[in-house]
């Protein structure tokens, strides 16, 4: 099973409504994935700054981490506690200070995501709880991807929840299962990619990051997954300025898309899209198998 959703605002005036619309999309997909849920949102960013989402995996809680970092790393511009995660914003030139501090003083802290615009939150439990705890309905964003998980290939843990990110501002959600992920993971590790889990979807994310690191665009990187990934998949991939969709050649997993002048939306089922504004007159279609779809903003 698993449910995946994506929403990309073409009309800037709809960005303040992103959180409310997207939270309902995610919650509607709870029945497809009650084990864990997560989402990546692309929000305001500054080219000179980096946003990191951190999660303490043992020891003190997130508020202790917040105090600890704020008192020891003066360059931190902002630290916001969101449920079990801590969002930290700091100048790009000081990023090393933070990594250095974490490595030496708080190695149990996991860096969930990093990027200029992306913030990623995920946790074990039901989508409605996760959405509320992380404050999703109040979030303004240009676009985002989300996932409700019914676990198959790895444990029900926060680490195993989607989205997976393997490069700054890049993330992937996956419905399906891959059969050649172990081989592919070894190949990617030899080529410098790092992985945190034994999860198959993380390998797909790493594969796309590896391709994009080689200067391929999102569309090209997705095309190549058709050659190298074996298994069932519907992917939704987020980047700093866009999102892409791809289904495996036999269209094993469901997918519906909708487009109006204001947005492009993706859902595992139409139910996830039924509340979107203007859906009655939207162009609604089922993405074709093995065909890459992607949308990018001209001005991020």
């Amino acid at each position: 099973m698993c449910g995946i959703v994506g929403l990309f605002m073409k009309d800037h005036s709809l960005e303040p409504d992103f959180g409310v619309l997207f939270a309902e999309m995610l919650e509607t997909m709870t029945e497809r994935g009650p084990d864990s849920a997560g989402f990546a949102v692309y929000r305001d960013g500054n080219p000179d700054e980096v946003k990191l989402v951190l999660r303490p995996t043992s020891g003190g809680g997130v508020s202790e981490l917040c105090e600890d970092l704020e008192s020891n790393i003066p360059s931190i511009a902002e630290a916001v506690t969101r449920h079990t995660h801590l969002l930290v914003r700091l100048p790009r030139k000081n990023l090393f200070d933070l990594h250095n501090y974490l490595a030496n003083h708080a190695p149990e802290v996991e860096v969930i995501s990093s990027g200029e615009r992306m913030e990623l939150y995920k946790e074990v439990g039901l989508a409605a709880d996760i959405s509320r705890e992380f404050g999703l309905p109040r979030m303004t964003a240009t676009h985002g991807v989300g996932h409700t998980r019914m676990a198959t290939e790895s444990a029900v843990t926060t680490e195993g929840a989607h989205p997976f990110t393997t490069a700054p501002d890049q993330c992937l959600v996956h419905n399906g299962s891959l059969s050649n992920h172990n081989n592919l993971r070894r190949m990617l590790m030899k080529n410098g990619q790092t992985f945190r889990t034994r999860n198959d979807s993380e390998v797909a994310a790493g594969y796309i990051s590896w391709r994009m690191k080689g200067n391929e665009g999102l569309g090209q990187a997705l095309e190549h997954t058709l050659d190298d990934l074996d298994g069932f998949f519907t992917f939704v991939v987020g980047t700093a300025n866009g999102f892409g969709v791809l289904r495996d050649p036999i269209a094993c997993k469901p997918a519906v898309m909708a487009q109006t002048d204001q947005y492009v939306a993706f859902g595992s089922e139409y139910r996830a899209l039924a509340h979107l504004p203007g859906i009655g007159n939207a162009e609604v279609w089922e993405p074709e198998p093995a065909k890459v779809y992607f949308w990018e903003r001209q001005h991020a």
Partner: protein
Amino acid sequence: MPNFDLDNVTLRDVNSALHEVDMKATGDWTISNPRGTHALAAGVDAPLKITIDGSVGYYCAGMNKHAEITINGSAGVGLAENMMSGSVRVKGDASQSAGATAHGGLLVIEGNASARCGISLKGANIIVKGNVGHMSCFMAQAGNLVVLGDAGDALGDSLYEAKIFVRGKVKSLGADCIEKEMTLENAKLLQSLLDAAGIDDCKPEEFRRYGSARQLYNFKIDNVLAY
């Protein structure tokens, strides 16, 4: 004329009401705000006229017997799956496995159908005004699939006795599916199917017919000795 608004009543309320009617009951029913809900109007067993205003989720009109169901929207996976009789018409598109295992009745898809349309078809008639996706009519045993647009890969793979008529291009034929002669009898059948679907802007001679080459295991008389 019962009218159900799914913003005010539950799916269970609607389906229970549909199941409780007398098998000979007639009348017009409307269902509004389906919002992609699953299994709507499944298992109806009476000659009702049911109109659904909006898009539906999985297995809509599944197992239909006698009812005439119209969907003013699109449909998710398994539309009219295992239909026995009656008719189902969707004004928009249908997702995968539309009309799967359907034994009888008429399914009309005014938009496109995606993969596996008419998979394991057992006697129903399916007319698709748009295109059908890959593996359509996979292992279909009886009945007819008419496609006014194009067909995807592996059309009619492992086909038994169903007939397939396609007006547009066929991307590829599946195992044991071949093009067959359009006989006068076939053309008459096709015309009757187009008439039943209310389509009057195309003619049987614009179509090509596909069927089973009857070369797979079950068609070999030698294999009868295995039993």
